[in-house]
């Protein structure tokens, strides 16, 4: 089975109203090329589940989003994501604001086909108060109440990985895979972009298979896009583009998203985008973050 396809083909599977999970974390290893491709479509009314960064901000700014399920949306070194902020302050999107760990439990419940996982997380806070859909239940084994974190079932997951073969075996060798394995498992259809398309034999060597964090049956499409996480990082290939993020952040105050879009997203392909930001070589030279 050859799962390799173009970004257009892969993202073409996304329909209005779907629930989309986006891998990565804040400004780290976000499938931004797939997000850019999604912005080129007519799709709208998406529910987006994300440890959010510019993926969420851009999709909000592009009018693709009906609802965001989030614990944070942040660019880390720029704490507040400008366009998510704008969308919230305009009241233009619905939200389900939860805890980072609740999101993990919701993804796991979906992956394991459970209706929910009970947890103390969220009790006593506005997570419960602001989300009446989250049920607080009794346990058959004690006298406490528990929040029943519902499964976050995803129609589509978008993930950017280091390497994949055409059969959908995906490798992440960076220091953290974040929750990407759970996004892949929680989704009906997982679309992966990769830095490198490799032969299957790559994984047979040494400990390479140890860095394959989900089975190929959990991946339905493979889109080779070197540099596809830009402006987020893809450690160890490249760091995040602080200069670009700063410009992106400033754009919200100076002209808004149309200006950013005109400068960087007016082309029809990822190649156009990469040319606008200085080319793949420049992306690959972005220094890794040191925390």
């Amino acid at each position, binding site marked *: 089975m050859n799962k390799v396809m173009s970004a257009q083909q892969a993202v073409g599977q996304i329909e209005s109203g779907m629930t989309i999970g986006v891998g990565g*974390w804040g400004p780290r290893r976000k499938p931004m090329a797939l997000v850019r491709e999604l912005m080129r479509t007519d799709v709208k009314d998406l529910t987006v589940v994300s440890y*959010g960064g510019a993926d969420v901000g851009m999709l909000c700014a592009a009018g693709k989003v009906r609802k965001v399920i*989030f*614990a*944070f*949306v*942040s660019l880390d070194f720029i*704490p*507040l994501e400008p366009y*998510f*902020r704008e969308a*919230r*302050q*305009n*009241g233009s999107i*619905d*939200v389900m*604001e*939860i*805890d*980072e*760990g*609740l999101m*993990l439990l919701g993804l796991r419940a979906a992956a394991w086909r459970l209706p929910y996982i009970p*947890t*103390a*997380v*969220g*009790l*006593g*806070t*506005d*997570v419960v*108060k*602001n989300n009446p859909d989250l049920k*607080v239940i009794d346990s058959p084994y*004690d*006298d*406490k*109440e528990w929040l029943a974190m519902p499964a976050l079932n995803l129609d589509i997951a978008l993930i950017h990985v280091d390497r994949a073969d055409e059969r959908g075996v995906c490798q992440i060798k960076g*220091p*953290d*895979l*974040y*929750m990407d*394995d*759970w996004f892949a498992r929680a989704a009906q259809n997982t679309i992966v972009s990769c830095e490198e398309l490799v032969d299957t034999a790559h994984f047979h060597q040494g400990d390479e298979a140890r860095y394959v964090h989900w089975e190929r049956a959990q991946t339905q499409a493979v889109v080779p896009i070197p540099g596809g996480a830009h402006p987020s990082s893809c450690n160890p290939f490249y760091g995040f583009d602080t200069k670009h993020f700063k410009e992106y952040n400033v754009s919200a105050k100076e002209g808004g998203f149309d200006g950013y879009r005109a400068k960087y997203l007016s082309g029809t392909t990822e190649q156009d985008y990469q040319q606008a930001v200085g080319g793949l070589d420049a992306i690959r030279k972005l220094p*890794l973050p*040191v*925390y």
Partner: protein
Amino acid sequence: MNQTVQEYSLAELMICAAAEAFRHDGEILATGIGLLPRLAASLAMKTINPDMMMTDSESYMLSDPNPVSGRTSHEGQAQESWMGFSRIFDNVWSGKRHAMVGPSQIDRYGQTNISALGGSYQQPKVQMLGARGFPGNSISHANSFFVPAHSKRVFVQDECDVVCSIGYNPERLPKGYSLDDIDIRMVITDLCVMDWNGPNHMLQLLSLHPGVTVEQVLENTGFEIYVPTDVPVTAAPTQQQLQTIAQLDPLNWRSKQLKDNPPGDRR
């Protein structure tokens, strides 16, 4: 070696005061969010609680804390366990963690807010980060607060605009819980050190930084706090502490964290 010295910055005083929060924690993961809390945790691990655990703020547990400045890569760090984000929650939910965080709002119950200000849930006036891990942290393990600018904007008069962490609020207490199940520890500000062990878990004053008065604290706090009869002065950093801090922050990034880098002793 351990004698106190006269010249130290307010940032260094706050780091040393904040390090005390971890003294009796034993073998827990200390997470200091922000440069000064991270330096506080690092200082504690290097001096008063060697059993403590810290991460590289990325994906590894360290046997020895990384300096916060002066490094160009993670190569060669003393990593001892992989600790990606998903594993962090195994630790959080085990309870073996103490986080020191800097909330935007703190109310009389010790509830905090980093999510949004004003407006409504559907349309806040100011959207901030989101609740992040605050709900889970607050009900799972110890938490302390680090406040660089003690003011009524932080220590708010009413309940937080968005309650991101559980506190000592009887009205929000979940079924089966008692207030003593909540574990909020220290509050370190640019004016003083406090904890939540006043009557009925009131915020209480523990020490005043040199040159700060009780009145200054009260004026800048939006709710009533408990002031014991005798309030000592926050202990000045020792020579050893300052040396360790300097090793942990060779480029002196700590000097840029507080506006105008005030001296620790403002008498």
